[in-house]
């Protein structure tokens, strides 16, 4: 036996097997009686069904010319472009045309006096399948053949195996070939030949997925499961294998979703941690800075759509600096207008930022409206790559994760390698001493507030392709962001990162088990317990107040 053949190998195997089963002589091309078919199609339902079943049955052996011809007439019948005049059938260019060509001879004739045959539901389905078979085998381009395959798939039980084998051997498009292989596989699963069945079961378990699992589970109802011990053990082994792979894949998917949620939390919370660590201001408007970032992204999208529609795909990238600056400027304005007067009064600044948050939410609601914004999805944030079993790496979440990673690196570089970062860290540790060294602490405050707000704006860009964007969206993130800051320790980027991963992951892990509300409650209770042990959080910067 070929080991680990995969889908293509499996098809090759089938082809090889079929060449043994069907000697070349049998494949000698049968000719189609065109006139008889045309007559039958113009006849009653029983005659139509019998003729079409014949076409389908012989499709593996028919000549390409006959198949193409049958496809044309069957499609004409489906589209009501077939007119029957006595014994002969006319194919029209469009429904209701006055002239048509004789289906059997190809001569042009007027339609006058002709009638359109009526199709029953069963006949329609049969004809769709047969016409699909014709398209799959003779279609000129990939799209036609794909449509044909899709039509066959709907009634796969009626499709002869030889037809699929013929199509697979002739097919040049790899995607379509894979699709054919999958279909041939499921056909082989219900094959009468036990060896072929076992091979099919093994091949299905090679590519585990939820669909493969349900396909294999369905075989348990098969009579062979009870009677044939080899079949039974092979099926049980395959099921166990697929089940394990699927649960690993699902686990990976949960982790992946948690990671992307954590990425956005991290971007929101990093700004919060810097601001709180530096100024002791609990910024309840941080969620609204996220919202502003998302709305700025929308603004960029609309501007690009109007000015340079050809560049629409690039709008997410163009929005990065715009969202950062917009949120940062709003933050700096709020700092200069309101918070500056409230330092060293934490309760007042907390209430003030809450007021700012309400003001921003309702301001946007009045200016833009409260509906969810519609975002175009450039190719780099839509779709994904199936990685393992049902686990698909979706580009939109990968975008958020990569974005957060870049933000993390830039934040660390700014904090660790620039004079501003050094000033921020010095003022965070000991404001009075930093002032004695000549650092303009008020200016540092303002820049840091702008920087922290800008980070939230970046979170707004990253979540546009994943979450819905509306004026109240910030509330979903601000509470979790605060938990991240408290858990991670104030004023540390690394602590924020670890806590964001922990809280994001915990939320996503618990949610499918007990629901979203319970997840929040459990995470909150866990944090409270943790803070009883370590009130300063995971990683606390030592400092004087």
């Amino acid at each position, binding site marked *: 036996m070929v080991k680990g053949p995969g889908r293509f190998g499996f098809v090759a195997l089938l082809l090889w097997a079929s060449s043994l089963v069907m000697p070349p002589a049998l494949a000698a091309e049968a000719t189609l009686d065109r006139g008889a078919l045309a007559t039958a199609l113009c006849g009653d339902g029983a005659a139509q069904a019998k003729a079409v079943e014949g076409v389908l049955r012989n499709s593996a052996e028919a000549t390409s010319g006959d198949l193409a011809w049958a496809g044309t007439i069957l499609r004409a019948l489906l589209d009501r472009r077939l007119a029957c005049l006595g014994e002969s059938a006319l194919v029209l260019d469009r429904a209701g045309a006055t002239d048509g060509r004789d289906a059997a001879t190809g001569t042009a004739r007027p339609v006058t006096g002709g009638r359109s045959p009526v199709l029953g539901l069963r006949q329609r389905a049969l004809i769709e399948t047969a016409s699909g078979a014709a398209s799959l085998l003779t279609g000129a381009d990939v799209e036609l053949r794909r449509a044909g395959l899709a039509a066959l798939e709907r009634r796969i039980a009626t499709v002869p195996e030889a037809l699929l084998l013929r199509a697979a051997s002739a097919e040049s498009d790899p995607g379509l070939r894979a699709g054919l292989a999958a279909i041939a596989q499921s056909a082989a699963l219900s094959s009468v030949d036990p060896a072929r069945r076992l091979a099919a079961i093994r091949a299905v378990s090679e590519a585990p997925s939820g669909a493969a699992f349900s396909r294999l589970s369905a075989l348990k109802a098969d009579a062979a499961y009870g009677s044939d011990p080899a079949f039974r053990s092979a099926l049980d082994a395959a099921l166990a294998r697929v089940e394990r792979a699927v649960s690993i894949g699902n686990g990976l998917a949960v982790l992946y979703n948690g990671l992307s949620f954590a990425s956005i939390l991290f971007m929101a919370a990093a700004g919060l941690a810097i601001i709180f660590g530096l100024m002791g201001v609990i910024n309840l408007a941080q969620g609204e800075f996220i919202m502003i970032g998302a709305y700025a992204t929308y603004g960029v999208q609309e501007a690009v759509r109007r000015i340079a529609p050809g560049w629409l795909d690039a709008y997410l990238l163009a929005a990065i600096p715009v969202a950062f600056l917009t949120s940062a400027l709003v933050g700096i304005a709020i700092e200069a207008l309101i918070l500056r007067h409230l330092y060293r009064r934490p309760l007042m600044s907390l209430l003030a930022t809450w007021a700012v948050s309400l003001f921003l939410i309702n301001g946007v609601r009045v200016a833009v409206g409260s509906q969810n914004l519609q975002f175009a999805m450039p190719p780099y944030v839509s779709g994904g790559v199936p990685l393992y079993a049902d686990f698909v790496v979706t580009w939109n979440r990968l975008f958020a994760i990569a974005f957060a990673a870049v933000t993390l690196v830039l934040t660390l570089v700014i904090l660790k390698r620039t*004079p501003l970062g*050094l*000033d921020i*860290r*010095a003022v965070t*540790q*000991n404001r009075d*001493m*930093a*002032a*004695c*060294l*000549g*650092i*303009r*602490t008020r200016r540092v405050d303002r820049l840091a507030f702008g920087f922290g707000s800008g980070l939230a704006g970046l979170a707004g860009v990253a979540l546009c392709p994943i979450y819905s964007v509306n004026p109240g969206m910030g509330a979903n993130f601000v509470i979790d962001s605060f938990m991240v800051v408290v858990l991670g320790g104030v004023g540390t980027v690394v602590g924020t990162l670890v806590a964001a991963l922990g809280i994001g992951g915990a939320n996503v892990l618990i949610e499918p088990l007990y629901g979203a509300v319970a997840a929040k409650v459990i995470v909150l209770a866990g944090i409270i317990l943790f803070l009883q042990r370590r009130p300063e959080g995971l990683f606390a*910067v*030592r*400092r004087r107040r």
Partner: protein
Amino acid sequence: MSALVIDSLEVVFGAFRALDGLSLAVDPGEVRAVIGPNGAGKTTLLDAITGIARPRSGRILLGDGRDLTQASEAEIARAGVRRKFQKPSVFPALTVRENLGLGCGPDCPARERPVRLARALAETGLEARASVPAGALAHGEKQWLEIGMVLASEPRVLLLDEPVAGLSDDETARTAELIGALRRPDRAILVIEHDMAFVEAVADRVTVLHEGRTLFEGAMAGARADARVIDVFLGR
């Protein structure tokens, strides 16, 4: 022309007169020691010069005639008056190099910063410890780091508050050497210290404070001989 002039300075905390009409002048290039028993007002004097304590009356003038009593802490620091605190005040979570970088001050030109950093590292002998967080340094090293931070800003007036408190004899001797090396013609250094041997080793002149007033000013030998000084220190 003096580098720093204190003119009838009066600092009051409630009913307590910490400084009571104190006057003193430090020349450029001079190392001046201020000594006195606990509560004499030594640290209050430095607080007033650096803007932490606000005098009720009197003036603190820099060499260029600028009055520091009206300036903010940051402005005073930027004017070239730098202080090393009594308790080592470094940023424990930042590395030695970062601490020295902060010491350079915000007005230090970016090009000059690495030069000053290298010089401060060399003068304090902390080159090998440049990437260590300041919190991990020994007490003596922290003292030198803080002197280095003050130094990196190229101060015109250097205020040292008990630089050898809690140091071993070896470390004290090294600190005395370090302060000797910091002496420059355009720089005035004011040292507050209890350790008489150390004061004798580094100071050109000493000012003895008592109850917020000047008790004696002159050479250390003179202070040792002065009857009032002996009275105050021995509590007779």
